[in-house]
């Protein structure tokens, strides 16, 4: 680990920012003591199984539930027609579209929910689900956006009145005219067309719910796998028409989310409706196939990018045209204003005056959901495109890809930097990060080795990605989901003995919030992190917030934690003045205590102040020691980094192996370096998975290929490369502790680095693109189709 030293301000006992504190949640996780949704059993609880469509596109002629209903132990069989009586057959999506809860008119993707069986036992529910007979009239399926845009394409969304095409949205960003002008004066234009395939966040714990609606009090307690419990409570109030004070969402321990647990799924709504009608708790635990084939997928972007270059290799402008495959319902989880998420961060780490992005979303007969799989609203796709494009541009003009980046980087003195699509980058030092990565990998030696290898007929490649992310949504001016502004919150209460509880509106799914957020309190108040309990995931007992995704918890809730701690520190100052019989202005703060300036022996600890807040507070002051902060971030944060991958490639088989993987990350100030490194390792692994093996595809009939872990691959420790991490620290100037968020950096940045490495190994043959995943057969086909070609780069 290469690191710029940043000594923590607090002692290991206090364990504030900068300490690699061990994760407190791991005690229960590694001993099997976690409390996940399926661990929860309620008295009288019923079980639900969902009947799914085997066809991608078909009219529903009839549904016969009689045999299923006759099975001993079956309580009810729910269909869309039944839900329609309660006005629940359709629900809103997070992008303002509608989605069928249970299909009534027709099915629009394989795996769509058609009926649900409620039974006393989960085995009975599944047995009976096989006895629900649905008569389908098949319709021609649309399995890609090109088909969907064809003039004679069947209309998928016949439920939308007057809909005459399959377009889900159109959107643009940047300045079209300025961009045209840039291209008009370009000495050279470099083009890349590539597909970012459909992947899936595939958390190890699938989605699930236990809906418990009390028939007497109408209190609905809904245990669910939710990354955003408060937002979900409001959605439930809007969808089900339940009074919001009667809804309590409890999100227990979550076994991974990665964006998959942001949307509201039909299963949640059906179980809640069933509990409401039956008056008993109803549990639904999704199957693996259900999860992979019906819940929020990610990517499926068909992208065309063009870079305009001047004669010296400087970028003049970027033009991107992108078509996204939305599936049957436009259900992206993203801020309202941005129809393709934050894809317009596609201008990347480079300085040029003009860019234009146009995007079209297309309905297809595939699963809906377009969530951001660990990527802050489509930033992964954007970062991938620009990093592939600049690498190709370097080949076309015969410049080293690292040198090309250095030439075009935004310089440190240009921050805050306004990008041509309207972002204001808070801080950055891209050249330093890339130089560090190059030093760590021994870049010059590798380039020399590559030349030699090519002479000997061996193939090796070096791939770079110098990404910039945009995370921490977001400022209320621009960022909301369904109208809910994307602030977040922290409520801090310190008890008389100096130990306290921190309640947050976000929800950890493995990120380690229970550990890190206590460290922020420790940093600000000097109270040991071990004395602070962190509570999340219960809407009755935490302040409102929009949840955890998009690397937003540290930029928003982390900032709120810092601010609320500072508010309480000011209260403590008043109490300290009272206790020390000094004036507030004469008090100095150092970690954990106030002392009178000039006489350090005259001091009180923060714990003394807290105790006094309950036992001996000054006249006119409110008792107690608690406060809340709703933090509206002034800007997004912009983490960045440079990754370098070295691969060796077997030309006979197309098999490539990662020899080295260097990742230099700059996420601003690191609260818990160990957890940051863990996040980076996870993201680098996911990036490797997507670039090498992972995809969900569909055959021409719309059958989902990739609906189990035999087809949809999760890499193991065996094939995952060894990672070498480096670090630079460029604090965010607007975040209270200078942190930027890191949950997604490595997923965003690494795919381009892996792919660029493979392309680099073949660049001398004229190869400029292979679509992900870079399976050996695709690589082999590419070598074959380029063999004999003259080198171009």
């Amino acid at each position, binding site marked *: 680990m290469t690191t710029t030293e940043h000594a923590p301000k607090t002692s290991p006992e206090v364990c504030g920012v900068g300490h690699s504190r061990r994760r407190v949640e791991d005690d229960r996780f590694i001993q099997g003591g976690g409390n996940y949704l399926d661990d929860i059993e309620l008295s009288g609880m019923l079980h639900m199984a969902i009947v799914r469509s085997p066809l991608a596109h078909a009219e529903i002629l009839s549904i016969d539930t009689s045999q299923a209903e006759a099975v001993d132990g079956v309580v009810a069989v729910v269909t869309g027609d039944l839900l329609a009586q309660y006005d629940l057959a359709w629900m809103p999506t997070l992008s303002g579209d509608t989605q069928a809860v249970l299909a009534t008119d027709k099915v629009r993707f394989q795996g769509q929910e058609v009926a649900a069986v409620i039974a006393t036992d*989960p*085995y009975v529910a*599944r*047995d009976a689900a*096989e006895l629900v007979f649905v008569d389908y009239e098949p319709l021609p399926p649309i399995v890609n956006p090109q088909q969907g845009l064809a003039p004679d394409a069947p209309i998928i969304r016949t439920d939308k009145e007057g809909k005459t095409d399959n377009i889900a949205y159109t959107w643009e960003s940047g300045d079209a005219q300025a961009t045209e002008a840039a291209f008009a004066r370009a000495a050279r234009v470099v083009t890349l067309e590539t597909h970012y395939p459909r992947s899936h966040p595939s958390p190890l714990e699938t989605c699930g719910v236990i809906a418990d609606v009390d028939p007497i009090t109408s209190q609905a307690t809904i245990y669910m796998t939710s990354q955003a419990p408060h937002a979900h409570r409001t959605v439930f109030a809007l969808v089900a028409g339940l009074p919001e004070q009667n809804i309590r969402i409890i999100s227990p321990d979550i076994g991974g989310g990665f964006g998959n647990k942001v949307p509201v799924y039909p299963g949640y709504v059906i179980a809640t409706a069933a509990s409401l009608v039956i008056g008993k708790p109803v549990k639904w635990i999704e199957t693996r*196939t259900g999860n992979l084939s019906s819940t929020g997928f990610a990517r499926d972007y068909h992208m065309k990018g063009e870079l305009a270059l001047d004669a010296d290799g400087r970028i003049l402008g970027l033009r991107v045209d992108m078509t996204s495959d939305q599936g049957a319902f436009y259900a992206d989880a993203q801020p309202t204003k941005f129809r393709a998420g934050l894809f317009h961060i596609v201008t990347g780490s480079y300085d040029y005056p003009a860019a234009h992005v146009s995007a079209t979303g297309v309905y297809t007969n595939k699963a809906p959901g377009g969530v951001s799989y660990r990527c802050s609203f489509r930033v992964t796709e954007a970062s991938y495109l620009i990093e592939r494009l600049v690498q190709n541009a370097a080949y076309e003009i015969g410049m080293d890809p690292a040198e090309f980046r250095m030439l075009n980087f935004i310089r440190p003195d240009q921050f805050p930097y306004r990008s041509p699509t309207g972002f204001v980058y808070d801080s950055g030092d891209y050249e330093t990060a890339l130089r560090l990565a190059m030093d760590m990998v021994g870049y010059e030696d590798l380039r020399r080795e590559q030349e030699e290898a090519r002479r000997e007929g061996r193939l090796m490649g070096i791939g770079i990605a110098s990404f910039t992310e945009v995370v921490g949504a977001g400022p209320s001016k621009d960022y909301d989901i369904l109208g809910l502004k994307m602030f977040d919150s922290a409520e801090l209460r310190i008890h008389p003995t100096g130990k306290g509880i921190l309640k947050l509106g976000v929800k950890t799914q493995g990120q380690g919030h229970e550990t890190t957020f206590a460290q922020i309190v420790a940093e600000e108040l000097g109270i040991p992190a071990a004395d602070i309990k962190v509570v999340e995931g219960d809407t009755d007992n935490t302040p409102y917030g929009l949840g955890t995704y998009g690397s937003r918890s540290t930029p928003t809730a982390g900032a709120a934690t810092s601010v609320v701690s500072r508010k309480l520190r000011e209260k403590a100052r008043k109490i300290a003045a009272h206790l020390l019989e000094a004036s507030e202005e004469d008090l100095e703060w150092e970690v954990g205590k106030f002392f009178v300036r000039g006489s350090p022996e005259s001091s009180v600890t923060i714990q003394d102040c807290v105790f006094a807040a309950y036992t001996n507070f000054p006249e006119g002051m409110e008792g107690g020691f608690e406060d809340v902060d709703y933090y509206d971030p002034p800007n997004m944060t912009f983490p960045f980094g440079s990754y370098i991958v070295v691969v060796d490639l077997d030309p*006979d*088989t*197309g*098999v490539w192996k990662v020899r080295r993987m260097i990742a230099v990350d700059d996420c601003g100030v690191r609260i818990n370096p160990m957890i940051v490194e863990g996040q980076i390792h996870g993201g680098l692994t996911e990036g490797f998975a997507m670039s090498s*093996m992972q995809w969900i*595809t569909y055959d021409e009939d719309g059958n989902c*290929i*990739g609906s*189990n872990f*035999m*087809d949809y*691959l*999760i*890499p*193991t420790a*065996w*094939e995952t490369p060894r990672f070498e991490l480096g670090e630079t620290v460029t604090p965010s100037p607007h975040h209270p502790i200078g942190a930027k968020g890191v949950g997604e950096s490595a997923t965003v940045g690494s795919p381009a680095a892996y792919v660029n490495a493979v392309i680099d190994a073949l660049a001398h043959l004229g190869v400029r693109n292979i679509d992900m995943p870079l*399976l*050996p*057969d695709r690589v*082999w*086909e590419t070598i074959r189709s380029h063999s004999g070609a003259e080198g171009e780069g």
Partner: protein
Amino acid sequence: MYPRAFDYLVPRTREEALEVLAERGSEVKVLAGGQSLIPMMKLRFASPTTLVDINRLPGLDAIDAVNGHVRIQALVRHNDIIRSDVVRAENHLMTSTAPWVADPLVRNRGTVCGSVAHHDPEGDWASVMLALGAEVVAESRDGGTRVIPIEDFLVDMFTTALEPTELLTEIRVPRYERGGGNYQKLERKVGDYATVGVATHLELDEAGVITKAGIALTSVYVRNLKVTEAEALLVGRAPSAELFGEAAAIAAAACDPTSDIRGSAEYKRNIVRVFTERSLAESASIAQGS
């Protein structure tokens, strides 16, 4: 896991197990390692009404060298092969194959005999047994003991010569003096089935001439494919790069892979050629050094 309902029987003696098979026959599935059967039951692709769990039967877990062959009994796990001194001393191809089977979790439970009895053409062991010319031993209450050559045993995809009333009790692999073998496998990740697998085994005489050759392919045909024409080409000849290239070309022509998410048919055929050539060279080198 939510399979359909089934009876679960745990016999304590071989006689008891054979009795159940004789009585219930085709509705029964034998459970050894369960690494293919249980996932199929989970997905409800297979729904046997009776499971006979043979894991508690005594005297079914031996790996030993007796009567000119190495004996692998029904409860020998893939990891037992990796740990076995007998296999390491006696058989290069099996030693080379075992670490390629599935992943460590599957190898802890799954059995060699179960894999062969299941006869998924994507399974590794059936190719190994074809290359080695193994024999399968089956027992039943009424039919006694049958010894079946592996080529006759493997009938078609998921179909073998085993009768519903029979229990596969052991596989016998011929011993050899001067030989070598190895398995080459292309997989997308650990635990994946083979995109292509190639098993080769060569035996040499004192003069270094090939006296016995085995070549079998995984995942590129409706069953595990023994490439007899290429084997015949090798016997009586001295190992050479040209010879192995010729044999590899025969293997590539003999297979009939399908295009799927693991790769195009053309790609797989290429891998068969590349791996057969590499595998034969490696086997010859081992044999020459033994």
